[in-house]
């Protein structure tokens, strides 16, 4: 069995299509591009490929990954060319490489980096920096998570601080702050960027213009022989 590990981007144009939509898009794209994808058995055969992680609707990304199982060898460059020829504007294959990894991408995944554009009624660089410092200086940031189990609503407190690796300001101009952050992603712990935005929004004496927030994922990182690297 051959598995191609593929990096692709989901641009601004298509940030509003969901995870499931994207799966369907690739299913059709493989067929149109004549990629020898392996199919599952059974009455409803579907092509075998899996994403590293889901991307929330409304978030674009320069670094998404998937593993694609093939039944025939195909040159990774040919794969990239054939796919990009038929993919819609907004989705582009960036890299592809055969992998021997036994573990799924999802299991290997550790961190994501994001760029977040925040618009405030009013903000200064010092104020923004103090908000970030405040978050990073804490040992514990508790949020309440609710889960519905049958009819019961279960709430529990979760410390999200370990899931935040870094936050830095890239640009601050005219009440617009563009920050970069690295957050925990994957089965061993996960923090959505929206939760971090919520933390910032809840700080005192600032007013975030909610519907102007833009989030973009830059890349994903896995752990390989104890090192943190990109998957391809």
């Amino acid at each position: 069995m051959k598995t191609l590990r593929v990096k692709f981007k989901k641009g601004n144009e298509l940030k509003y299509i969901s995870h499931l939509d994207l799966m369907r898009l690739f299913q059709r794209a493989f067929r149109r591009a004549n990629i020898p994808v392996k199919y599952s058995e059974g009455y409803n055969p579907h092509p075998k490929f899996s994403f590293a992680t889901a991307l929330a609707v409304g978030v674009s990304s320069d670094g998404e990954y998937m593993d694609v199982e093939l039944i025939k060898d195909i040159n990774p460059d040919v794969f990239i060319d054939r796919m990009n020829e038929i993919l819609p504007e907004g989705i582009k294959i960036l890299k592809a490489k055969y992998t021997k990894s036994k573990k799924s991408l999802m299991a290997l995944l550790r961190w994501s980096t994001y760029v977040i554009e925040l618009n405030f009624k009013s903000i200064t660089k010092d104020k923004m920096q103090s908000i970030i410092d405040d978050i990073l200086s804490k040992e514990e940031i508790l949020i309440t998570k609710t889960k519905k189990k049958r009819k019961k609503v279960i709430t529990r407190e979760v410390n999200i601080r370990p899931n935040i690796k870094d936050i830095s300001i890239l640009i601050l101009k005219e009440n617009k702050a563009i920050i970069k952050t690295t957050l925990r992603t994957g089965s061993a712990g996960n923090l959505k960027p929206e939760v971090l935005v919520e933390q910032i929004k809840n700080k005192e004496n600032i007013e975030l213009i909610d519907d102007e927030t833009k989030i973009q994922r830059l890349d994903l990182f896995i752990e390989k022989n104890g090192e943190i690297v990109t998957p391809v």
Partner: protein
Amino acid sequence: MINEEILDKILKKVEKPGRYIGREQNSVIKDLNDIDTRFAFAFPDIYDVGMSHLGLHILYNLLNKEKGIYCERVFAPWVDFEDELRKNNIPLFSLETKSPIKDFDFIGFTLQYEMSYTNILNMLDLGDIAIRSKDRKEKDPFVIAGGPCVYNPETLSEIVDIFVIGESEELILEIMKIHKEWKKENKYKVDFLERISKLQGVYIPSFYEVTYKEDGTIKERIPKKESYPKVIKKRIIKNLDDTYYPEKLIIPYVEIVHDRIMLEIFRGCTRGCRFCQAGMIYRPVRERSVESLLELSKKLVDATGHEEISLSSLSTSDYSRLDELVTKLIDEFKEKRIGLALPSLRLDSFSLEIIEKIQKIRKTGLTFAPEAGSQRLRDVINKGIEEENLIDSVKNAFELGWSTVKLYFMIGLPTETKEDVYGIKDLSYKVKEVFFKLPREKRKGNLRVTSSASCFVPKPFTPFQWHPQDTIDEFKEKQNLLKDIIKDRKVNFNTHDARLSFLEGVFARGDRKVCEVLIKAWEKGCKFDGWSNIFDYEKWKQTFDELDIDPSFYANRKRDYDEILPWDFISVGVTKKYLIKENEKALKGELTKDCREGCTGCGINTKFTGGVC
């Protein structure tokens, strides 16, 4: 163009924003500078429903193949998106260029279902276009409509400027050509309407006046000018293989209701079921050849990558070379793991063989449509199914490994008695017994019989067009009767909302007077009436009361043969004489043969096809 930045903010707040972004592959982008005529194809329901409609894809591609025409799409926004549009003062816009629909030359609605009419008004209003035809200005777009419901166009006569009756593949281009000439001449809208009113299939409601008798029925239809045609003949396409069929279909991003390639194998139906409007209005039967269907399917698969092809027609089993077509399609697409769906099959033994072939790739439930519970009533409606056939087919299907069966029935058919209603239970239970009579080792899976009974709505141009529809109370009584007696873990029973079917009945056979009802109901907030979570019957009831219009006059009244019906001025080819004869035969329980076994004299071949069917 609407403000994309504001749109971006709104999209974050709504459910399934992918419905509103456009940009799908195979959608058409043109430079507006090269365009003479802009056409907005408007579907009065959400994207997920509208994109599943084959007619949209045909007309969209047909129009866009012309250099000077640009056809774009617009759908009814779901309520959350509508709220945001109104709050932010964004007019309803097209998906392709994000232009307000007011900027178009035409807004073309397809009328698939009477209970989507309020959405038409809502979409016009969201586009900042006056609801009533007479209130629209010279610079406003023409509102044009086609589809099966235009066979009774009168209920929308105040709203729509132009109706296109019949198959519009040729007609729409003739209209576009005249529009281009007219636009250059800088004349009034009425000049354009006068010119196209001479084309076969075009109906301009504002060119006619209707007077009424004291009892509320129609007295006379008067053309306002001598030159306006008294009878409007539907349009048909003579040879299907020669007509346009798209070789590309837009690939939607969001999941739509029928997410597959739709391949139209033929039009029309020869069976002559007496309740069925499609069976009458789409005559005669015209098939596409196996060769051209294969060719088309290959192109469509290449262009879309879809995982399923669905053969589309009114009665798939009646395609003359079905076995050959299915075998060839399976051979062609097995490798690519493309499934084949055959809806509208009559489940005789022949069809089961074909289904078995297909199901080697994908297995789904089976659907049978006996329509009525008793043999007597099935004869009344000319549904040539004998109980024996049905039981045999079901047995056959169970032996082949199926265990999920759906049965479709109607309640409220003409002459229906309590015994006929009980028949629905009896037949459902018999199907169950067939399963358990099989030796245990032959049964596969868990039996599930789902019987559903919809409420019969008499439709124009059917032999039952004169019959009173059951009242809401009568429907409810029958539904409750069945709910009380169908008590079995293996048999599910479903019904439809009788109030909705009643309104459908009013608009299906309404006249110009119910147009006011529609407008007022919409003003009260009615929209998406076909969606049970939004449907608000109380508002409709209030509307009828306030306008002092009795809905039962349209739905529940028995009409005489000599009454002038609102749709009588349309000629569909099938004659009124034939419909009367069929109705009389129905009342006596006499069958009419399938017209492939010999002409039954409906009239289509004398008026439209020059002798051939």
